């Protein structure tokens, strides 16, 4: 067990109607690690997250979580195992209260002891607990997505573009939050276009281009890699 990483992808591939969007992706993630996932639009980042979280099913390769194969499991089972995520366009339960949004996940997420108030405090929405989620700003809704994921007591969090549209001080707060989560032992895979933000929180990034993994290593090294530069500039 000790040699097995928390998450390990081996040759994972996905095609939509003959169009290959992800080709033989392999990497692994350790507990408490923050890994950045970068690449131009359409490079397959969100697809990778959808495959890991079970929203879509991989056509090829294996995904292992804590040593056991998990591809093909329904998303709610993955949530119970400890894999959770946020969405690029936040998807709260709009006609339910903010607190109810958290309570649902705390109740069904396989972590019944979870304290909704603590989660609300963590994501800084304690003051909005009673209002309908649909009444929050988009940024608040993104935080609510994160809070709902946290309420399931995850071991691996997939964060899809949480930073877009935030001002520097908000970005700073989120960076701190994500780092705090990592310190608790939660592994994070963060999809992000904001490289400064990523640079601040990650040790390691994975660069995708047209569905392939181009590079794995520090962001600094990535910016000097000719393949990566070509992918970003050449489109």
């Amino acid at each position: 067990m000790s040699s097995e990483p928390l998450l390990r992808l081996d040759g994972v591939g996905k095609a939509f109607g003959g169009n290959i969007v992800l080709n033989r992706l392999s990497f692994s993630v350790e507990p408490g690690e923050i890994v950045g996932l970068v690449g131009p639009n359409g490079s397959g980042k969100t697809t990778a997250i959808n495959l890991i979280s079970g929203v879509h099913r991989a056509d090829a390769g294996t995904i292992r979580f804590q040593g056991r194969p998990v591809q093909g499991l329904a998303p709610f089972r993955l949530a119970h195992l400890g894999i959770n995520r946020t969405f690029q366009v936040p998807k709260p339960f709009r006609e339910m209260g903010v607190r109810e949004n958290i309570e649902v996940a705390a109740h069904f997420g396989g972590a019944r002891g979870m304290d909704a108030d603590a989660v609300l405090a963590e994501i800084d929405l304690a003051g909005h607990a009673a209002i309908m989620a649909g009444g929050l700003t988009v940024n608040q809704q993104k935080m609510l997505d994160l809070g709902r994921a946290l309420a399931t007591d995850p071991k691996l969090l997939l964060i899809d573009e949480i930073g877009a549209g935030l001002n520097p001080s908000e970005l700073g707060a989120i960076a701190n939050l994500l780092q705090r989560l990592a310190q608790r032992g939660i592994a994070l895979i963060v999809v992000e276009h904001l490289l400064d933000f990523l640079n601040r929180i990650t040790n390691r990034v994975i660069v995708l281009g047209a569905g392939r993994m181009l590079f794995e290593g520090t962001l600094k090294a990535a910016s000097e890699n000719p393949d990566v530069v070509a992918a970003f500039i050449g489109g």
Partner: protein
Amino acid sequence: MRDRGAWPGIVVVVLLAVVFLILPHVYGNQSLLFQMMTFVVLTQGLNLLYGFTGYLPFGYVGFFGAGAYATSLLVLHTDLPVIACVIGGGIGSIVIAIILGPLLRLSGAYFSIANLAASQIMFFVVSNGNLSKITGGPYGLKIDRVYAPEASYLTMLAILLLATGLAAYFRASRFGLGLRAMTQDPVSAAMAGIDVVRQRVLVWLASAGIAGLAGGTYAWNLSVFYPDAVFTLQISVFAIVFALFGGVGTVIGPIIGAASLYLLYNGIGISFPQGFELLYGALIVLLVLFLPNGVSSLLTRRGVRVF
């Protein structure tokens, strides 16, 4: 805020029981009361599915008819007590619902219309002359040897209480909270750890089972009937209109909707039959335009949380 526990549900159930036990002693047209209960049950059963999962079953009558036939055939071919046959009707409908389970993969209008088609298929198969030996085909069925208006009235009341209890459970429990979540966003609900498919199927089966029990009891109460009597689309349409009138996703909305509109239906039907269709049609149009969330939304708008 949410955790008022089981009390509102218990209050509604007890009130319904008292009202429908007293009514026959005050008002002699027991058929009218029986049918009113039947429509309240069907409206509530439809509300279980539509109000709590967003799936609108146009073909809801299919489960009603399936229950009627399953019950009647059990009465004709076995020596089981009638109550057991009625339960068999509920089970029969649940079996049909399991077979039709894949329809839940469809969404919106597709689900509704495919379900409508499924109910028509059941109707046409049951009434087909080639199956006369099994289903009675176009000649219908006759189970008048067990005809018992009192007992079937009480059975329908029990089903009404069961349906209301289920709705109250959906409204007030964590299970119901999960249903609300998955209706609003199934993907997020899955990420919150809800087994969306399982929950939806459970509700679907419960809703079908209620219609099946109601259908079985209805057949028992009629005791001589043609296929059309238990498969007519009018039954689906009434249940939908009643549910929307009262307000779906609540417990008392469908009860209010079905009871009041059914009384109105009979009121117009008895006093002003020529204008009936016209008035009913006009009423529906006005409702949708001016009160699309049902009469219970009149209270919601004033800040009252309708149970």
